[in-house]
């Protein structure tokens, strides 16, 4: 059985999320290596990375026919490839692009699509037993997925990228999809470069602020502390809903998922939607006036106290430490 895996690539190589999805796909095919599907110029095919994560073949759709990202066209191409290869399953990372291409593929083919899967096992009846995220991973759903092909996106934060012991030599097959004119109506007309500066998603240290900060003027000490720790400030949903800070700083289900070494959560009670965003932190320390706040059930250490007193004291201690050292 063939398993196809959409691989999002650019000049820098394959997206990490796509390599994780490829590892997921490698486990689906009962030992048969999956085939990657790459949209882009031939020299953008990250052959080594795709082979290292289990692919034996890649289907390449070159921009001559399809320049720029176009969700309907990508879905149409995947539908054609699935028919061409007799694929039993098609998977993609649960990114914006992955989810929407797979959603459209489900709509085009009339098949169900399971989003944000963390595992899938053949059920012996042509379908899969899947485990998928609900509530951004706060809840797991055990479900059965029918469909030929079976369509899944992969909750890549919960699935590791695994290098295979003996990579195949990647065979690259050009593929020319049969597109309708309408398939190119929605197309990315410009894709801006990566933003510079520390990003919340990748920061090594995040200093979090919640309702306990008290208002828009309360964030200066958190900014100073984040600066001293080489990190950035993140906030809870109430802070962005009140307009105290911009939404791009929100950590949580409807904001950014963070994966720092340290998350220092100040004045945050710990609604589960917030915890969905910071569960990937290696260490969590809480500063909160309430020792009964739910966030303490998810943290390593806590300081009970007013952040207005504690944070300036931490800043002073760090400054004294660097002056002394």
């Amino acid at each position, binding site marked *: 059985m063939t398993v196809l895996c959409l691989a999002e690539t650019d000049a820098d190589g394959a997206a990490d999320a796509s390599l994780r999805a490829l590892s997921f796909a490698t486990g689906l095919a009962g030992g048969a290596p999956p085939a990657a599907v790459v949209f882009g110029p031939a020299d953008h095919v990250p052959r080594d990375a795709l082979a290292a994560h289990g692919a034996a073949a890649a289907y390449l759709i070159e921009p001559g026919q399809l320049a720029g990202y176009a969700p309907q066209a990508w879905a149409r191409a995947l539908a054609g490839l699935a028919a061409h290869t007799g694929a039993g399953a098609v998977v993609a990372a649960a990114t914006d692009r992955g989810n929407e291409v797979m959603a459209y593929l489900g709509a085009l083919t009339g098949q169900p699509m399971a989003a944000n899967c963390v595992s899938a096992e053949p059920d012996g009846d042509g379908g899969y037993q899947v485990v998928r995220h609900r509530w951004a991973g*706060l*809840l797991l759903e055990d479900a059965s997925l029918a469909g030929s092909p079976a369509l899944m996106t992969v909750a890549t934060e919960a699935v590791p990228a695994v290098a295979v012991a003996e990579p195949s030599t990647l065979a690259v097959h050009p593929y020319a999809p049969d597109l309708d004119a309408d398939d190119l*109506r929605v197309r990315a007309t410009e*894709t*801006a470069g990566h933003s510079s500066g520390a990003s919340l998603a990748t920061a090594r240290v995040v200093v979090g602020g919640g309702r306990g900060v008290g208002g828009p003027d309360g964030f200066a000490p958190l900014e100073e502390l984040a600066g001293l720790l080489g990190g950035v400030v993140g906030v809870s949903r109430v802070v962005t809903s009140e307009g105290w800070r911009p*939404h791009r700083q929100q950590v949580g289900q409807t904001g950014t998922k963070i994966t720092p070494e340290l998350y220092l959560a100040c004045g945050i009670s710990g609604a*589960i939607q917030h915890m969905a965003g910071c569960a990937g932190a290696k260490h969590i*320390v809480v500063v909160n006036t309430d020792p009964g706040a739910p966030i303490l059930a998810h943290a390593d250490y806590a300081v009970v106290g007013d952040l207005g007193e504690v944070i300036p004291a*931490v800043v002073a201690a760090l400054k004294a430490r660097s002056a002394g050292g």
Partner: protein
Amino acid sequence: MEIGVCVKRVPMVGGKIVLTADAQELDTRMSGFTISPHEECAVEEAVQITERLGGTVSVITLGPEAAADQLREALALGAKRAVLLETDGREWGPIATAAAIVAEVRRHAADGPGYDLLLCGNEAADTGDYQVGFRVACALGWPCVTGIKNLEITETETGAGARARREYRGGEETFEFGLPAVICVKEGINLPRYPSLPGRLRAKRAEIERYEPQWQQEGLRKRSLRVPAAERKQATVLGTGADAVPALIGVLEEWGVLP
């Protein structure tokens, strides 16, 4: 501009998720309900567009009778018309949900002006299926894009269009296409207003159109739900107030996170 906004009634969960004994759904006996967050922003976006360009916002939901509460929330924010696609309380999958919305879009086109734009949330907070918008768009033959955090309605030679932007791998990508279309937005596209008192009163009195679409079994079948095992235990309290700071610095040093 005629805008339809699709919203979903979801439980308001606080510090903990509790399941029913049969592990089929959340135990909501103690919780309130709300409009799923991305969709609250979809309502606000639609209201802002009609404030600029004129037109009507219709809010559409599929759910039990109690979901009328969420329609009234949206009416209080400035939606003018409300449509309840009433269910018997069973969970509906994305294929059946999309079919019910498509029927409403066709009804609106047959009986009235028809929608120029359908706004959805990017994904429902609870089920996170990420696909209703695309399934609706595919059935109608309309363009669709998701993850949108900035939206401009444009005038082109051939009619109204949209310029829609979203984040992409640390940067941004832009899409431009003609209307009618389905656009799925994310929280952060705007800051939803608080309902005004006159808005609340109007919402309370407003009439709600009701239809009863047909449930269907889908190929993705829920067996049960479970809460993942906690990775951490209760936090160790280092101390109180500024007195705890030396202990805190010690912990950070041990973890190697100090510069």
